[in-house]
């Protein structure tokens, strides 16, 4: 193909403008804003590291940070475990597996607000299905208020998000499973390996690059959780289900503290970046590239 030096740039121009204006410049700008006190209505005031000092000394920040970690510790294993289990189930050569695949993926394409509302109704304390089932069938005397009790709210949010997105992890694992050369597992079976041995010593190691990838994107998804919290608990009761991403939203767009919220956003970036880095460093220990 013959083209002038300029032509490729013309092709990428719209995307390049978008990349600059909506990604790269904002990433830098929010770093700058994090050193200011700015409520949008009056001009920003440079305050140096004050926002970072304030947040590190604030018990609320540490509570929210702890919530973010707990949320990730619950959500990531849950969604990955579910995703892998579903992938293994629909990867069997059984009639109807395409149908089940379609069923399990469905929640992922539906509006999280709508499914969060359905769960809110199922989990509601007095008239909710879950608590009434617990009372009727399992003889639980006074089942908890799942969304109204600080002890449960964060877990409920993590569960609903895992329920909604497990179908996506399933697809990724499924793609990985389908890439595994069947002759390897068949050969092991002929040599007398049991199914669980094949799974532990062949399937899991061969799947590990995908598992690694799913881990990275699940952590990122976990750290930017906003919609499900907004629709399910609004971060409450008190701050029990407020994670860092939601706390950023509240500070920026409810209290209009753009500087403080930007400092929080950089803490979030540090958290995600740190975890991703640890992931990449630890990769050599357990990820096998065939």
């Amino acid at each position, binding site marked *: 193909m013959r083209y002038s030096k300029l032509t490729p740039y013309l092709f990428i121009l719209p995307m390049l403008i978008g990349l600059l204006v909506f990604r790269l410049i904002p990433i830098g700008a929010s770093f700058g804003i994090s050193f200011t006190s700015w409520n949008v209505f009056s001009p920003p005031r440079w305050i140096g590291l004050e926002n970072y000092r304030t947040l590190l000394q604030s018990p609320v920040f540490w509570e929210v940070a702890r919530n973010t970690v707990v949320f990730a510790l619950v959500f990531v294993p849950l969604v990955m475990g579910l995703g892998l289990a579903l992938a293994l189930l629909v990867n069997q050569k059984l009639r109807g597996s395409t149908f089940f695949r379609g069923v399990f993926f469905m929640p992922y394409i539906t509006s999280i607000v*709508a499914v969060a509302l359905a769960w809110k109704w199922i989990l509601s304390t007095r008239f909710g299905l879950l608590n009434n089932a617990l009372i009727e069938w399992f003889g639980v005397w006074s089942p908890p208020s799942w969304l109204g009790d600080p002890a449960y709210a964060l877990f409920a949010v993590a569960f609903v998000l895992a*329920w909604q997105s497990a179908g996506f992890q399933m697809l990724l694992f499924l793609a990985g499973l389908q890439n595994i050369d069947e002759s390897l597992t068949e050969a092991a079976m002929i040599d007398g390996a049991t199914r669980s041995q094949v799974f532990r010593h062949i399937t899991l190691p061969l799947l590990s690059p995908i598992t690694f990838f799913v881990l990275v994107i699940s952590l990122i998804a976990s750290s930017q959780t906003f919609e499900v919290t907004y629709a399910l608990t609004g971060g409450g009761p008190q701050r029990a289900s407020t994670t860092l991403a939601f706390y950023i939203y509240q500070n920026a767009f409810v209290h209009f503290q753009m500087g403080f919220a930007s400092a929080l956003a950089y803490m979030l970036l540090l958290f995600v970046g740190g975890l991703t880095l640890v992931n990449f460093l630890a990769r050599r220990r357990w990820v096998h590239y065939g």
Partner: protein
Amino acid sequence: MAEPAVVIDPVRDAEQARRRKRAISALRSGVIYALLAVFSFLTLFPFLWMVITSFKLPGDVFRIPPTFTPTLLFSDTPFANYAEVLFKFDFLRYAGNSLFVASIAATGQLVTCSLAGFAFARMRFPLKNLLFGLLIFTLLIPIEVTIIPEFLLMVRLGWLDTYLPLIVPSLMVGAFGTFLLTEFFKTVPASLEEAATIDGASPFAIYRHIFLPLSTPALASLFVVAFITNWNELLRPVLYISDRNLRTLPLGLTTLQGQYESSWTLLMAGSIISILPMILVYIAAQKYIIRGFMSSGIK
């Protein structure tokens, strides 16, 4: 006298072994089907409960123990909850807004991503790898990091309470879409391109008349993925839209929730209205959607 039990009969033994093997594999499929059924139930039940609740009389919702009868279906006005949500609470308009925003954003993404993907896949130019790397890198950045400057930019541009902030950012940075189409365009045989070049075709003509028609499946996948993502988007409508006439479905639904917190019949009817179009699209184009989302994850 010989004991009949020790008579070796290889045919019978093989038959028994085969039967046992078949029994084990039948048992195994049985267990797998049982697990599939349990997970399907857990997946589908919230949707079923949504449907049932949306067809109940408001008073029937607060019964202990809960009932599974869609009472409204047996009345003169089976769709009363839907009618109320659609017309009294303007969900018909919200659905139109969502449709408008999602179609424009998804169509726009096809244009920007395919143009960029063509250059990344088929041309050589300085900074190519750096730019492509930066694009992929931004996929790892949480939206919360970029949304504050984006909001301030929208304020400055005077775009609050217009559809523009819902459409433009999503339309212009389809990092995943660019990636998907770059990979797809790389698989197109070079011979096609060479033949067209000899005939004097310009790069744009090659892109327009050879690459686009060849990549209909990839474009379809990208379109549905982008459409669904935009249809379900909540954060940007929450930030940028306060005019009730411009609300999208997810925003309308959260607003309704704020106003009528325990009107579960209305909330569930509203939820069904927001998810039904996507489920229909999903059933019609499942192949493209699954392929699209699958490649959104695979390197």
